[in-house]
């Protein structure tokens, strides 16, 4: 599959909180069908960037183009309806509702110009729930399920919106290594099936390396490196940005595997 068209362009995006430059002139592109890893130490600006792109924060500077459409000034719900979605680092389930209802909301309200009739939206929701493996929990209240299941639910919810681009914000946070592995597999499977482009935000190196086509590295709000996993891993600036030894060990592991 070789569609190399660019689906998302982030141009010179900046967000200043007073004197603090949380995001500082970041630019990169996402091509259709790609998984772009977005990494950086805590506080690098990854989540802020996500909030900027999806319209939650107003931009200090810069533009975002989605399929050549300037979405820089759209509201979050409008951006969601066009096909650009995100998950939350700290999950935001719709409390008081069941898993199925949560996913149903995504199915009803996600991308515009779809059949949002209740019956069909419900069907869509149930299919996605099956896809992520939450069928046994679909009638449970979100307050009653475990964190990994909450993450799966949020993923399912976003998938039910039938987006073209998903910003997965630290989906792995709080999961143990087995769960991380399962989640990686799920993401890869889903990407294949649904022809999505994903911006994969993480700071668990192993997960990102194995899954991304390209990687963008942020540090103190600026983009310091962009390239393939191999290029990024060996880049001295990147090594410097992270805590030395532990990361260097991570590089060795990846190098030995790849």
């Amino acid at each position: 599959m070789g569609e190399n068209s660019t689906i998302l362009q982030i141009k010179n995006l900046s967000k200043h909180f007073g004197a603090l430059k949380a995001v500082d002139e970041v630019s990169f592109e996402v091509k259709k069908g790609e998984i772009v890893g977005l990494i950086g130490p805590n506080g690098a600006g990854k989540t802020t960037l996500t909030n900027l792109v999806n319209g939650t924060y107003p931009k200090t500077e810069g533009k975002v183009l989605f399929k050549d459409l300037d979405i820089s000034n759209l509201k979050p719900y409008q951006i969601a309806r066009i096909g650009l979605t995100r998950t939350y680092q700290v999950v935001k389930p719709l409390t008081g509702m069941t898993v199925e209802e949560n996913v149903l909301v995504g199915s009803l309200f996600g991308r515009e110009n779809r059949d949002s009739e209740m019956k069909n939206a419900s069907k869509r929701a149930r299919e996605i729930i099956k896809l992520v493996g939450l069928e046994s929990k679909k009638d449970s209240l979100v307050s009653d399920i475990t964190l990994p299941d909450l993450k799966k639910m949020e993923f399912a919810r976003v998938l039910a919106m039938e987006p073209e681009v998903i910003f997965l914000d630290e989906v792995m946070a709080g999961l143990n290594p087995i769960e991380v592995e399962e989640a990686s597999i799920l993401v890869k499977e889903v990407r294949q099936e649904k022809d999505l482009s994903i911006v994969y935000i993480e700071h668990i190196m192993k997960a990102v390396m194995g899954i991304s086509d390209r990687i963008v590295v942020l540090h103190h709000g600026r983009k310091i490196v962009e390239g393939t996993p191999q290029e990024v891993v060996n880049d001295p600036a990147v090594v410097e940005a992270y805590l030395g030894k532990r990361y260097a060990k991570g590089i060795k592991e990846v190098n030995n595997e790849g």
Partner: protein
Amino acid sequence: MPNSKKANIFLLVIAVVLFIFLPRFLSGYWVRVITTIFMYAVIAQGMNIMSGYMGYLPFGNAMFFGIGAYVTAIGMSKGLPFLLVVPLAAITAILFSILLGLPVLRLRGHYFAIATIGMSGAILSVVQNATEITGGAMGTTLPIIDKAPGVVYNYFYLAMLALMVITTLSLHFIIKSKFGFGIRSIKANEDAANSMGINTTYHKVIAWAISALFTSIAGALYAYWMSFIGPDEVFDVMIAVNTIVIMLIGGAGSILGPIIGAFIIELFAEVAWSAFLEYHLAVLGIIIIIIVIFVPKGVTGTIGDFVKRRKLRVGKKVSI
């Protein structure tokens, strides 16, 4: 599950039919009391959609009651028939809800709750002072129906009953719809709702318009029923307070909660007011506190919890 659903519908239909024939067995006084209960149930449903389902408490919602009452009074004083004035009253209230709602609903819950009190107070002021149009602080009269009092009471009883049934059914279908999910998502997590493609401002404004619709028609009926209304009476903040207590005790966020709550509160009021006349404010305050502490989910919520716990227990028994 479909069996219990059919059973529920059957029971409700029976209840409605019973209510229709109830006036034959009651004195005029009690017919009026129950009419008031129906009316409060409607007003409570109006608040229910906003507060119970969407999580935005319109403390000053009584303003729509007053608007409904006054538009009806003014319209009928110009000779317009009641059935024509009611839609006018509803439309006026809806327009107010949209005009006032757009600036305030863009923000979050805090502002909205009391902003509505201020609005209610301001509208009350205007009505009190625009004496030529509204009769000012002294109130205004409506045409009296030329029939025996007993017959009139029954008419309004049935009208309020019908309004309550229609309102409740409408709310039931609205909540089940896509729009209803939008509303509930706002209460659940407004940030997430926005990011999922829900136009929250639109949902909030429309929800308030629906609330205004229900409440204003109740006000219109009230005005015609009483034949005389005054500004302090129809814009009384106590209407909203009673409504909130009704929702609390009935259980917010449920379809039947407001109806149950209205019955409990009004019947209690009938019994207790004579005993506590000088202290009724304090008693009301204490009741509110007791409800909040002991029965925060109201009757329907607590019953719902009880049913769920029983289901869990039964489930455990079966699996062992």
